[in-house]
């Protein structure tokens, strides 16, 4: 199977700090990856690099068997979308305008948004529970509502690969699960892929079948959930002991 997204011989770092080197990482169709690691280990930088927004120190990102740098941003944006950790809003915008902006890579240069773009945006708003908020100003939303709007914009963009940077920030417990459920369902439906940065190990274990650990020293490990979720590895990753508790046929991880 050809990977949807691939890091070949990737070396990523900022200034003196090295996050990974010579990393070979293939993201295959249908896979959901969680990227775990301590603060400052380079999780966000890794996501930005996969999206082609930050240059690599060495190596290449390949998207659909082509080097990402050889593709236009527009082509990239049609198959790969990213939910950033934080957004800034400098000018007044409505919720619908923000969600509709997700359609940008699909709209021809000389055109306005079509009825289809509008329908897809409204559908994304239904899926994220934002019905009735179309004309609200972004500045009037709560943190959780804003996060769902950002997720809706990504859903409207409808890429094959979702890169999610702490998608559950500001969301209540129920909404966290509903949102991640939504994204994993999309991945399965379209045989796409997802890579997310998450701090909640149990949420990650619930929704992701593959894990990549960034230790913050340049060392990385990746593999399936079963290979990766082990006491000794997690202890080393978080510099804190983690214990599994059996629960309903699965395991819950608690910090010691």
């Amino acid at each position, binding site marked *: 199977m050809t990977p949807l997204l691939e890091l070949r011989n990737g070396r990523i770092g900022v200034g003196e700090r090295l996050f990974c080197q010579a990393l070979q990482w293939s993201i295959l169709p249908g896979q959901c990856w969680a990227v775990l690691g301590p603060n400052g280990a380079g999780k966000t930088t890794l996501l930005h690099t996969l999206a082609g927004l930050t240059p690599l120190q060495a190596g290449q990102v390949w998207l659909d068997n082509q080097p990402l740098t050889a593709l236009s*941003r527009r082509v990239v*944006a049609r198959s790969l*979308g990213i939910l950033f950790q934080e957004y800034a*809003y*400098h000018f*007044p*915008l409505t919720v619908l305008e923000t969600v509709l902006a997700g359609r*940008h*890579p699909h709209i021809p240069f000389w055109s306005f948004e079509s009825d289809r773009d509008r329908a897809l945006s409204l559908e994304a708003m239904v899926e994220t529970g934002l019905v009735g908020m179309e004309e609200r100003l972004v500045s*009037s939303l709560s943190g959780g509502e804003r996060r769902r709007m950002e997720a809706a914009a990504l859903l409207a963009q409808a890429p094959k690969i979702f890169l999610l940077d702490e998608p559950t920030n500001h969301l209540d417990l129920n909404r966290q699960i509903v949102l991640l459920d939504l994204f994993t369902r999309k991945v399965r439906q379209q045989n796409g892929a997802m890579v997310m940065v998450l701090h909640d190990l149990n949420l990650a274990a619930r929704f992701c079948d593959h894990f990549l650990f960034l230790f913050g020293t340049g060392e990385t490990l990746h593999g399936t959930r079963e290979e990766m979720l082990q006491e000794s590895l997690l202890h080393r990753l978080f510099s804190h002991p983690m214990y599994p508790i059996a629960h309903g046929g699965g395991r819950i991880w608690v910090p010691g």
Partner: protein
Amino acid sequence: MTTPDFMGQSALRGGERGLASVAVLSLLLLFAIGVFVLALAVGGLRGGVVDLLWGGGDPLVLKVVLELRLPRALGAMAVGGLLSVAGVLMQTLLRNPLADPYILGLSGGAACGAILALLMGLSGLWVEGGAWLGALLTMAVVFWLAGSSTGWDGSRLLLTGVVVASGWGAGVSFLLYLVPDDRLRGALFWIMGDLSRGSNPLVTWSVLGVVVAITWPLARSLNLLATGSMRAAALGVAVGPLRILIYLLASLSAAAAVAAAGSIGFVGLVTPHLLRLLGCGDLRVLVPGSVLLGGGLLTLADLLARSVVAPQQMPVGILTAMLGAPVFLWLLQRSSR
């Protein structure tokens, strides 16, 4: 610098947004045309203007309208449009609602160039050429300084421009100190902003045409750029080239406006915000809308500047700030309730 929430309390909402945009633009067009006609009709030489329409009338009135009022109204319209579009673009580029056309130091550079030309005993087109030279020099210096290392993040560009601007400010003060008394009035022109000098409207209109023609089709991408470079890039915008293009277009607009009329304050800052208050935050409406509104407002202000103290003429820059500040504050108060 945080964004105040006030700016979006718009009156226009709902699914009829597209229609509302067309309505707003049509109204603005009517406003601009109305003001333009008024500017041709009103002046020290009263009466007889209507007769001209029927082919009759006093040849002296015809001469005044065609040779004095028409070029001046055309100039005011273009300069107002240039300042407003430059304001929109600077605010978008720097992602800062407080940005105005002069924020990156163009007006200071232009003033220095012009006053230096005056000091050298030059006059007329040479002085305007000096202003162009100063503005373009500033544009190049800021571009080079801000782009050299970190590849153009917004705050670095802003900081570079603001520091260059304050440097020019000191330069202007120094040159004013050197300027002999008999040329002081001509030098002050560049600081206050005045449309009475009668610059060739062909230049300003050409620049305005080029800038709007390039900017308007890019407006949807610019909407995204205003929300952040990373987000814009993630949604398929080629951010690097676009930012450079917008920097060049905004600077060119501001340079053309300053070279023609000195640094007229307030129009470029406030016009975009007035439209945002009306709910026209989308750059596809904001760009043409601010050209019409800014052009109309400046023409109106210039009409007042040459009428209220007639036969004296007040530099229009004084009036734009004197009227603009209270009007904007009033709107702000009203909208935040």
